[in-house]
């Protein structure tokens, strides 16, 4: 299936996606293509529609207009099996959303066991290996509230990875973290990018976006106002609104 002009089938394809919350239009005819193994960063002010866009991709939000295709499957089709779709699209949230009544290990094991039918031993082996990878194997039997924010967020990332998703959505995953905890989380994301994980990030970390992104999209008022390679967007933005936004953000970064 060829859905873009130049022949290559994008892994993620959005065409004319619009979304309203009541009378408020939060996404306005968004078009976006993401190639497999690419990292796309969504930047823009709070309320510009970044999170909503991510949540539409795994059907946490319903799209009112337009079409979304992920891995050749039409997400916006009425009859789509949401549970099957979500198994291949992982999402990590700003507030981690670990399950507080389960240990770290149980958090990572739950979905593989229940949604993928792993045996207990299989799920546990995988979970321990993932926790080892992020240096948190020693915390396997702790409850999430015993971990720092950065540790919780890394657990949330491997919890998503345990389902072996083909696409990972990261929704401002460092916004709730103390500055000194951000780097560990970003290091893990960088590592994932290096292994070729297809990712879409909503982020306020401009330096990180610049470093890790293959494509940066600037959202403003529910519209992708400008998109391009990071060097172009950060060094030479076409749109005055993009320039304004970047100036404001970089100013704020200098102040802190």
């Amino acid at each position, binding site marked *: 299936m060829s859905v873009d002009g130049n022949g290559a089938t994008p892994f993620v394809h959005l065409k004319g996606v619009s979304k309203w919350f009541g009378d408020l239009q939060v996404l306005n005819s968004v078009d976006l293509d993401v190639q497999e193994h690419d990292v796309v960063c969504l930047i823009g002010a709070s309320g510009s529609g970044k999170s909503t866009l991510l949540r539409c991709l795994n059907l*946490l939000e319903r799209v009112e207009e337009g079409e979304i295709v992920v891995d050749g499957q039409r997400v916006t089709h009425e009859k789509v099996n949401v549970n099957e779709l*979500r*198994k291949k699209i992982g999402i990590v949230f700003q507030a981690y*959303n670990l399950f507080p*009544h389960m240990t770290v290990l149980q958090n990572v094991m*739950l*979905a593989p066991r229940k*949604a993928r039918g792993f045996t207990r031993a299989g799920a546990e082996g995988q979970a321990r290996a993932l926790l080892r990878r992020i240096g948190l194997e020693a915390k396997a039997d702790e409850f999430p509230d015993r971990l720092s924010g950065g540790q919780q967020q890394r657990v949330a990332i491997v919890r*998503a990875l345990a389902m072996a998703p083909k696409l990972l959505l990261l929704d401002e995953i460092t916004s709730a973290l103390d500055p000194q905890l951000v780097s560990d989380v970003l290091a893990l994301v960088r590592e994932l990018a290096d292994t070729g994980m297809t990712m879409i990030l909503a982020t306020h970390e401009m330096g990180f976006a610049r470093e890790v992104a293959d494509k940066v999209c600037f959202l403003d008022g529910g519209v992708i106002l400008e998109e391009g390679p990071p060097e172009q967007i950060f060094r030479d933005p076409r749109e005055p609104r993009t320039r304004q936004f970047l100036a404001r953000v970089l100013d704020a970064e200098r102040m802190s």
Partner: protein
Amino acid sequence: MHALQEVLHAFLNLHTFTLSMPDVWAGFQVNLRMMVVAEALVLVLALALAIVRGLPGPGAKPLRVLAIAYTDFFRGTPIIIVAFFVGFGIPGLQLGYISSRSFTTYGIITLTLVYTAYVTEVYRAGIESVHASQRAAARSLGLSYWQAMRYVVIPQAVRRVVPPLLNDFVGLQKDTAIVSVIGVAEAASLSQQFSTQNGDFGSYLVAATFFILITIPLARFTDHLVAQRERRERAQAF
């Protein structure tokens, strides 16, 4: 002063207290049986009803409406009226097996019907108190609606509602005395019988003592759980 003395003598008569003890104890065992069976049934039925009330989608609307009608009816009707309906109505229907049960069974049915309505609301509050982001996280991992409920939402909800739930059980345990109105030979009715026969009220004190011995530890245990949770939450805030 004379009147007070007479009342005190009638209620705090050590002689009748010991004399009535065996009768009232025999009755209280019926109360205990009703408590245990009704509480077990309520725990399960109320959770089922709370889940039905929370079912999403337009297709489940009739079920939701039924569940709401149930809780509205049984929370709004005095338990004594429900006891009359069950205790006199069901036998009157002449439906063979279900119309020929013991008074105790009708007492249990009454308590279960009424307290299921209360406890459904307790569970529902618990389910609603689990933040939507928990459900979103579970569903995003590919868990179905029921799996998300079973493994993520309900375990957290139940933990939160244990104290109010035990509170309702204190109420249920006391209300086992009310179903004496349909003829259950339990502690309250047997102490009344004893009192009528002996012309003083010492047996009531016996019945009260039995109830208190059961309900006060449960109330203190509830307080303990609440205090424990507050300590834990305060510890987390730092």
